[in-house]
């Protein structure tokens, strides 16, 4: 019998016989069930005792499906019966579990039809370890069966990966999002109504064009679109400027530049907004200084479009930089040298060879900027004024006085439309050209230096932008030490003491400060989420780039979908979907981890896809012909060459988990409070000092996390010749987030 089949069969049976079938109230890691009435207690019982003594008779067909795979005993993989048995077992088992889970809920039958047809039935709760692991066992029976039929060369690792990723993407993205989109079609009584839907989707608050003709604001859709395009274009241009400066200019302080541009990424989204207020707000430093100087009181120009734009540019330019630096550095020097030997001068080389080869990077940087801007919640919340954008409108539709789930669903639909269109246009633009620039052949040569007519503008732009960023961060660091901003500028430590005081009691350290609870929760959740996100993202990227299979495009679309959905929607949809069986997660830490994984996974995917499309496929093939299977190839050849992408994915997911606010604000609970929602709470109480102090601490923590990750992942060894031979041959290889769709 096949070893993998046997392994999953054992897991399934053990889970069925030993682990509690239903979710346990005292948390995922609680082990109280072991000593508290197990195995006969109805709360803790494994499936067999639920059937025997708990009255959950509908679980009894499951063991039949679990035992079925034993019929493959002694059959070779090539026997058609082998795959048929596994498919029947897996699909039947999984299908039956889903069927019973969705039809029988906490109040017995879920549907009126069933209630009228059958006798009343016992209630059941969400699935626990037992239910989930048995489902997983069935899932892998399906993938084993599919692989045995010769799909994807019969590669079990790849088929299982596709199966696993598809299953969890459906469960944690499609399922919750469909819940909220269904609500778009419902009126306020929960009945389906086309009239309500059409009146909402054509609402003037979405599509109004008042700003063109009069003083009224435009619709949120137009506002978001204008903002997103502007932010996308500008951040891409700035990102390219920084990337060229870092790689091509012989600039001495490259490391410093990298550190500076990483700063805004590790900043909670609303902090830049707050800092801009401290500078340019009505009682801001610059405002008052300029006001004194020229004797006029500047207006509230910051609140609205200019403020949001400025804050988003500051926040998202580094992302574009991270994308661009990977591409700029990845371009094979021989191609540039080839152009130069063809009598192109440096300017011509740059415009005809280097720049076109950066197309995937440019397209991705734009797409990231566009989507980030669309989905940004913190900055518009702090700086929006009366400039409505879709993401905040969704939030207010739900938490505001209207409490209009339908409106939120409609707005979400519009937002989704924009982001998906951008996604498809980008694919079109990249077309089917090859952008492979790292091949299995050792590549040598030098990158060409920047042409002079580019060099000075780049120094100028990057220099002033850097200076501006430094000022912003000084404001943040300084703000935490000031008594009350704008009124009393005397220095104090009191905000830090309130938040982070530590005492040494008789039982060791006492974490007395008010912020410690949310701080440790945030760190824990982010640490759990980051490697999972990166791993899942890169695995997805590998499957997407290296494997051809039917449904490839749908698969790709599914994995990228969550990125195009703003956090607000994810937050609300998770609450709607996971508050009731079969998966009960609200109020747990797990829902936060899951939310982060699926919010940030696309970054890992994109980073991986980008880096992988630069890797020559014959590297994989060489490994396969040397007898390695695809799992070993993935581990030993693909992953090591993807180190920059791994770094990008790890850092990004860790940091995003620490700084995210939009989805988190719906999902936190008293037990699992996150730093950002705690800070927003302080801001709402006008406790700016403590909020900013906390932010400073977060920034420092994330900065050290980034350094640790960088150290752990190490550099990619490509062994290209360096222009300054004194340094190590492999320069700091940057995270690499461009990509090719072919």
């Amino acid at each position, binding site marked *: 019998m096949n070893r993998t089949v046997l392994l999953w069969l054992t897991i399934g049976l053990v889970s069925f016989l030993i682990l509690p079938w239903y979710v346990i109230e005292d948390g995922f890691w609680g082990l109280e069930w072991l000593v508290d009435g197990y195995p006969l207690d109805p709360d803790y019982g494994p499936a067999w005792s639920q059937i025997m003594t708990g009255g959950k008779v509908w679980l009894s067909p499951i063991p039949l499906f679990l035992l079925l795979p034993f019929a493959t005993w002694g059959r070779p993989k*090539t026997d058609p019966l082998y795959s048929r048995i596994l498919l029947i077992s897996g699909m039947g088992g999984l299908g039956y579990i889903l069927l019973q889970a969705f039809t029988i809920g906490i109040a017995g039958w879920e549907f009126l039809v069933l209630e009228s047809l059958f006798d009343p039935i016992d209630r059941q709760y969400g699935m626990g370890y037992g239910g989930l692991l048995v489902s997983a066992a069935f899932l892998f029976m399906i993938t084993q069966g599919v692989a045995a039929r*010769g799909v994807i*060369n*019969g*590669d079990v690792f790849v088929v299982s990966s596709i199966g696993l990723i598809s299953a969890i993407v459906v469960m944690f993205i499609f399922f919750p999002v469909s819940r909220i989109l269904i609500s778009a079609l419902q009126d306020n009584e929960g009945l389906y109504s086309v009239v309500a839907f059409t009146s909402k989707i054509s609402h003037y608050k979405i599509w109004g064009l008042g700003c063109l003709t009069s003083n009224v604001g435009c619709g949120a859709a137009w506002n978001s679109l204008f903002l997103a395009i502007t932010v996308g274009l500008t951040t891409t241009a700035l990102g390219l400027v920084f990337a060229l400066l870092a790689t091509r200019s012989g600039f001495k302080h490259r490391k410093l530049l990298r550190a500076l541009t990483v700063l805004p990424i590790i900043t909670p989204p609303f902090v830049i907004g707050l800092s801009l207020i401290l500078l340019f707000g009505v009682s801001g430093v610059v405002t008052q200084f300029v006001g004194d100087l020229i004797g006029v009181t500047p207006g509230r120009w910051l609140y609205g479009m200019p403020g949001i734009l400025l804050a988003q540019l500051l926040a998202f330019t580094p992302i574009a930089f991270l994308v661009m630096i990977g591409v700029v550095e990845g371009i094979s020097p021989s191609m540039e040298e080839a152009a130069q030997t063809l009598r192109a001068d440096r300017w011509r080389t740059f415009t005809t060879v280097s720049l076109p080869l950066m197309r995937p990077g440019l397209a991705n940087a734009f797409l990231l900027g566009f989507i980030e801007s669309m989905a940004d919640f913190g900055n518009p919340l702090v700086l929006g004024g009366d400039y409505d954008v879709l993401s905040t409108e969704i939030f207010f539709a739900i938490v505001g006085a209207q409490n209009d789930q339908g409106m939120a669903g409609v707005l979400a639909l519009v937002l989704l439309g924009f982001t998906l269109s951008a996604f498809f246009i980008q694919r079109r633009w990249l077309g089917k050209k090859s952008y492979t620039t*790292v*091949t*299995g*052949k*050792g*590549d*040598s040569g030098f990158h060409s230096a920047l042409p002079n007519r580019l060099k000075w503008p780049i120094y100028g732009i990057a220099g002033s932008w850097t200076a501006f960023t430094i000022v912003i961060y000084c404001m943040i660091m300084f703000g935490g030490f000031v008594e009350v901003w704008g009124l009393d500028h005397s220095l104090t430590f009191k905000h830090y003491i309130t938040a982070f005081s530590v005492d040494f009691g008789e039982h060791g350290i006492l974490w007395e400060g008010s912020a410690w609870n949310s701080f440790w929760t945030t760190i824990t959740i982010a640490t759990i989420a980051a490697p999972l996100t990166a791993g899942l993202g890169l695995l997805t990227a590998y499957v997407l780039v290296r494997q051809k299979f039917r449904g490839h495009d749908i698969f790709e679309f599914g994995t990228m979908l969550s990125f195009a959905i703003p956090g607000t929607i994810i937050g609300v949809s998770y609450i709607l979907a996971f508050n009731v069986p079969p998966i009960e997660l609200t109020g747990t830490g797990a829902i936060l981890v899951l939310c982060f994984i699926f919010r940030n996974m696309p970054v890992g995917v994109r980073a991986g896809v980008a880096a992988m499309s630069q890797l*020559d496929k*014959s*590297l994989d*093939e*060489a*490994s*396969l*012909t*040397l*007898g*390695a*299977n*695809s799992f*070993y190839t993935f581990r*030993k*050849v693909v992953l*090591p*060459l993807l180190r920059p992408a791994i770094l990008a994915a790890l850092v990004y997911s860790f940091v995003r988990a620490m700084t995210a606010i939009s989805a988190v604000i719906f999902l936190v609970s008293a037990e699992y409070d996150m730093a950002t929602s705690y800070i927003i709470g302080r801001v709402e109480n006008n406790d700016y000092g403590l909020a900013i102090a906390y932010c400073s601490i977060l920034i420092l923590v994330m900065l050290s996390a980034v350094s640790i990750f960088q150290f752990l992942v190490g550099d*990619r*060894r*490509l*062994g*290209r010749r360096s222009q300054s031979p004194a340094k190590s041959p492999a320069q700091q290889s940057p995270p690499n987030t461009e990509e090719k769709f072919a």
Partner: protein
Amino acid sequence: MSIQSNAASVVFDNVSKIYGTDIVAVDQVSFSIEAGTLVTLLGPSGCGKTTTLRMIAGLEMTNGGRIIIGDDDVTTLPATDRDVSMVFQSYALFPHMTVGENVAYGLTVGNTDKDEVHSKAMDGLKLVGLDGYSERLPSELSGGQQQRVAVARALVLEPQVLLFDEPLSNLDAKLRRKVREEIRDIQQNLGLTVVYVTHDQEEALAISDRIIVMKNAVIAQEGSPRDLYEAPVDYFVADFIGNANLLETEITSITNGDASVRIGSLELMLPSRGMSAGVAHVAIRPESVMLSRDMASSGLDGLIAKATYLGSHMEYTVTTQMGELFVIDKDVISPMAEKISVKINLSDRGVTLVST
């Protein structure tokens, strides 16, 4: 030398490969390769030779037919499970591993004992003359050295079949000859089964026991280098292998398998090769054309249009009533001048009837 050979035969039985719905890359091809021989797949680009090679490797799956390596039907096995290794055109050395790690890669996959892996990898490097380079990165080696690392990496696994996909195309001409001789030596010394893809006919002639010439997804001709050179079956093979003057001719009569052929004023007797009387083509190797200044002798009339001195031999372009002839002459002591008239005769070897 601790590297052994597990050479096995390869059999293709009616194998087809179709990309998409209608692009036929390989069309019902059958051949068999004996264990311990070096067989070259030769053909112009797009003829299906690389696809054939990748199907032996298991990197492409067939759409029909069977592939048998040794005694096993491997048709449905993926690359991982076949005992075959491959040297890629781009070498595909793992850039993040040292030379030593690259060579040891396939061995570490198979849970081999660590010391054995090391010593085998070292043996492999020694075999290709790169001992002492194991700590370097591939990018720190020259093209020829990278090439040899790729060979060593494939060799140390002692595969049943060793595949080469245009391995010399990235090397300069001198190095190409040197490396191909090294590959041939290693193959002969270890008795390996090697399948070698190239589009360079000279390389194929130099290195192979047998050559399979492919054209448009099917086999055009299969045989030893000598067979192919001296008895090409058709116009395509004659033209593709070596240089050949292909002239239209007429078979006047056939007696006992010998055809009377008239080329201008020349009358020849050639093996008929199953052809019947009528218009046919004759392939004449350039070194089979004999030129004479003695205009009184018999033969075809010609005029030297161009004479090129190449050190070891002369090359002439001769215009005749049949068209231009390309001629190679060993006589470099007293070469013929351009613009003189000559009489042309053909030698017994190197003149064959070919089908069109």
